[in-house]
């Protein structure tokens, strides 16, 4: 299929860039020990400029611990982290809440760590689909809206390294795909490195260059295709996950309109109206 080839080309393009791209941050055998157990142990990974690296793993696998350690937010009990000097990071944490006593609207949230012009802020919010919420108080946003605002804020900094911990949680299904596509286009525009945390692979499959599968330690890593076929991945997520991957492959031939209806992608093959991707039950599996 034409669009699938395009996806493949995108991945191999990422692979080609990887050869000479500089390493932004590298973890060497890092371990974090808390309350009598290793949350992560002997984890080595690196993020290079221009690549999207996805960290996947089940709940409690230490994904958030790993990215927080990588950002220098946690003291290490083993190993080292090498950051490129002067690295600019943009961070979307897994959890974000704001006290009602602190009046903060979306516009002010955008300039939390750095000043930006009004038009920059408007463009960034438009790009994540919440341009209309610029004056909304942050404490009244839904979970998905907060994620979109936080993503816009992190991108607005034009970082070298974008670290996104479950950035699409609470976002509706069509919105998730839009957000991942937006993340990829930002990567192309800024040629930044992106470290993405996800608890499942199928959604991020098409947008990621490299996958590291984590369960306390690094189980397997490589391209999404190779990881999804590896026995470790199968063991960790079970055959259902692989099935979901297959569904999502079909899914990428079309986009979804605001009503959830199927919209053919420009230049792509026409959607298979009776294919498994358009079956609501199949989508439920994919989620």
């Amino acid at each position, binding site marked *: 299929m034409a669009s699938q080839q395009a996806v493949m080309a995108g991945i191999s393009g990422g692979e080609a860039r990887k050869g000479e791209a500089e390493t932004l941050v590298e973890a060497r055998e890092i371990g974090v020990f808390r309350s009598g157990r290793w949350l992560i142990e002997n984890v080595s990974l690196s993020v290079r400029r221009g690549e999207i690296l996805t960290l996947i793993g089940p709940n409690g696998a230490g994904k958030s611990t790993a990215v927080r350690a990588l950002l220098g937010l946690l003291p290490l009990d083993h190993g080292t982290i090498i950051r490129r000097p002067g690295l600019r990071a943009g961070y979307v944490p897994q959890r974000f809440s704001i006290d009602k006593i602190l*009046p903060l609207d979306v516009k002010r949230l955008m300039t939390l760590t750095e*000043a930006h012009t009004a038009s920059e802020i408007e463009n960034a919010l438009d790009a994540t689909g919440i341009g209309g919420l610029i004056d909304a108080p942050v404490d009244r946003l839904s979970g998905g809206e907060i994620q979109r605002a936080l993503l816009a804020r992190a991108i607005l900094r034009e970082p070298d390294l974008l670290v996104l911990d479950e950035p699409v949680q609470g976002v509706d299904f069509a919105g998730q795909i839009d957000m991942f596509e937006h993340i990829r286009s930002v990567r192309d525009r800024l040629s930044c490195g992106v470290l993405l945390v996800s608890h499942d692979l199928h959604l991020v499959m098409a947008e990621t260059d490299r996958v590291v599968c984590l369960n306390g330690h690094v189980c397997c890593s490589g391209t999404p295709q190779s990881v999804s076929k590896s026995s470790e991945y199968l063991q960790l997520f079970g055959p259902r996950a692989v099935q979901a991957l297959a569904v999502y492959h079909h899914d990428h031939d079309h986009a979804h309109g605001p009503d959830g209806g199927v919209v053919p992608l420009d230049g792509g093959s026409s959607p298979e109206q009776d294919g498994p991707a358009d079956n609501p039950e199949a989508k439920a599996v994919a989620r």
Partner: protein
Amino acid sequence: MLDDFFSRALIAGIGVALIAGPLGCFIVWRRMAYFGATMSHSALLGVALAFVFDVNVMAGVFCVAAATAPALYLLERPGTLPTDTLLGILAHGTLAAGLVMLAFMSWVRIDLMGYLFGDILSVSLSDIAIIYGGGAVIAGVLIRIWRPLLAATVNAEIARAEGVHPERVRLVFMFLVAAVIAVAMKIVGILLIVSLLIIPPAAARRFGTSPEQMAIFAALIGAIAVLFGLFGSLQFDTPSGPSIVVAALAIFLLTLAPFEAPVKNNPQE
């Protein structure tokens, strides 16, 4: 006009309120109200130590109040006692220790009530100079650390990941609070200082739609409370420090009234 004790009191009180409001916003946002109370209670120990070592009273208060933060940190380290218990121990332990030390120093004759509840009507011209000079320094530093401090208050992890040092700005902020306590002690007294730090921000929350707006409203509400409190104290012959706090309380209660929130006017539109 400055020859008049009442005018001097008014000018001094408004000066303290203008700086206490914005700084107090951070105390409220960071949920540090009880910590602020502990810092101010410890001020009496600072007064006593200042007499022992024969240094300036404000300097003594500043040092002891600033030392509260590391003291709490050390006490928290074993991790067996909850923070509010430790704060209570620190607050009242230091207050009592200060009172006992002052009692031992029979050669020192001080106006204890003045330190505890304020003595704004005895404010001198040099006091006004210290309040406005110190206030300007505090305001300058606060403006400089405003963005990182706010970022660390909203989300310390985002702030740190993006190059802010939350501990560093927090430490600077603690020094600013200690400085305001030292400067404001004469106006409302050790036991009531915290009210000037937290009541105006609490009253301002309803009107502020951004952190900066809330800080400005808090400063103005504090100044209005000083104005009403002092005139009330003159009118009804009540103690000035408590009268200011009662005025602030009245304003706060008024903001709880169920009237319509002001419509946000947007000049760009």
